[in-house]
């Protein structure tokens, strides 16, 4: 026996009110509570939520704790996988890619200003993965909207999104805190020219980060709505 439309609507509203907005926990809780309703056949669904469902989850906070705990586990898994991919780039045969990137950046650094090398690395290593990810988030959102689903995002995608935030935050700290304190904004250009190896190494790391993100997207990112 399936839920009636009224029961479905009450359940969807309840989950949304609790603050469950991502696909994975929403689907899992929806199925759990819907199965319980089908079995217990309560006359008053709202009362049933209040007196049976909510206490067994440990209240609204208990439900949110379950969701947050799962997100945390997912984020740790994503970071672990990202680290594995990044380190694997220093093994054979991926080291070839690292060496080619390094030589390419070294050549660019010899021919152009260090500033352009950094811009080139930032475009390839940061902005391309960020654009792919934004496209993915939007595409998923559009799919959910088209199917009139009660959620618009996927928790796994958000875990990967947090990984992308790391380099932008790191750049912000370096640019707004470390450089002004230790080098001085005005001297930064001269510093880059004086130490081109630092620019090349930093740019190579940015490129490798970008490659890691793209590989991670390919493995885990949900671009289209599908069963999780």
């Amino acid at each position, binding site marked *: 026996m399936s839920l009636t439309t009224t029961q479905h609507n009450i359940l969807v509203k309840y989950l949304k009110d609790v603050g469950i907005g991502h696909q994975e926990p929403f689907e*899992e809780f929806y199925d759990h509570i819907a199965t319980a309703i089908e*079995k217990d056949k309560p006359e008053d669904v709202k009362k049933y939520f209040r007196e049976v469902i909510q206490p067994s989850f440990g209240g609204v906070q208990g439900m949110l704790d379950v969701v947050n705990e799962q997100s945390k586990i997912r984020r740790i898994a994503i970071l672990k996988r990202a680290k594995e991919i990044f380190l694997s780039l220093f093994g054979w045969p991926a080291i070839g890619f690292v060496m080619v990137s390094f030589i390419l950046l070294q050549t660019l650094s010899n021919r152009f200003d260090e500033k352009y090398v950094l811009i080139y690395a930032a475009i390839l290593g940061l902005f391309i993965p960020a654009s792919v990810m934004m496209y993915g988030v939007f595409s998923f959102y559009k799919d959910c909207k088209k199917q009139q689903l009660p959620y618009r995002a996927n928790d796994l995608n958000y875990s990967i999104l947090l990984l992308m935030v790391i380099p932008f935050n790191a750049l912000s700290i370096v640019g707004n805190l470390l450089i002004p304190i230790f080098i001085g904004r005005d001297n930064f250009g001269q510093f880059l020219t004086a130490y081109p190896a630092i620019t090349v190494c930093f740019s190579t790391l940015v490129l490798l980060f970008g490659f890691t993100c793209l590989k991670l997207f390919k493995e885990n990112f949900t671009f289209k709505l599908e*069963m999780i």
Partner: protein
Amino acid sequence: MSSSKLLKGSLATIILKLLKENEKMYGYEITQRVKEITAGEFKITEGALYPTLHKLEAEGMLSTETQKVDNRIRKYYSLTKEGNAEAQTKVAELEEFLLNLQKLLNPKLGMG
């Protein structure tokens, strides 16, 4: 101490044992199965069940698959190869613990 507090420490073992006996199960099914086996004496709360399931999944003990049931998505949990081995170990550990506990609580039985 209430039975629910005692149960909490053994929850992972109970889940692993149930999944060893049943190929795959979903969250609600696990709570109902425990209730059924213990004639309602043990009640697993959802607030304890799901974090344990998610933790076991992250540790690689459980794998998941989804199926469309009654026009909604149902997530099934099943044991991985590692989970299968872990289930055996955990159940053996718990059995040994219960045996020792019995010896302590009822020495006459323990000596038999």
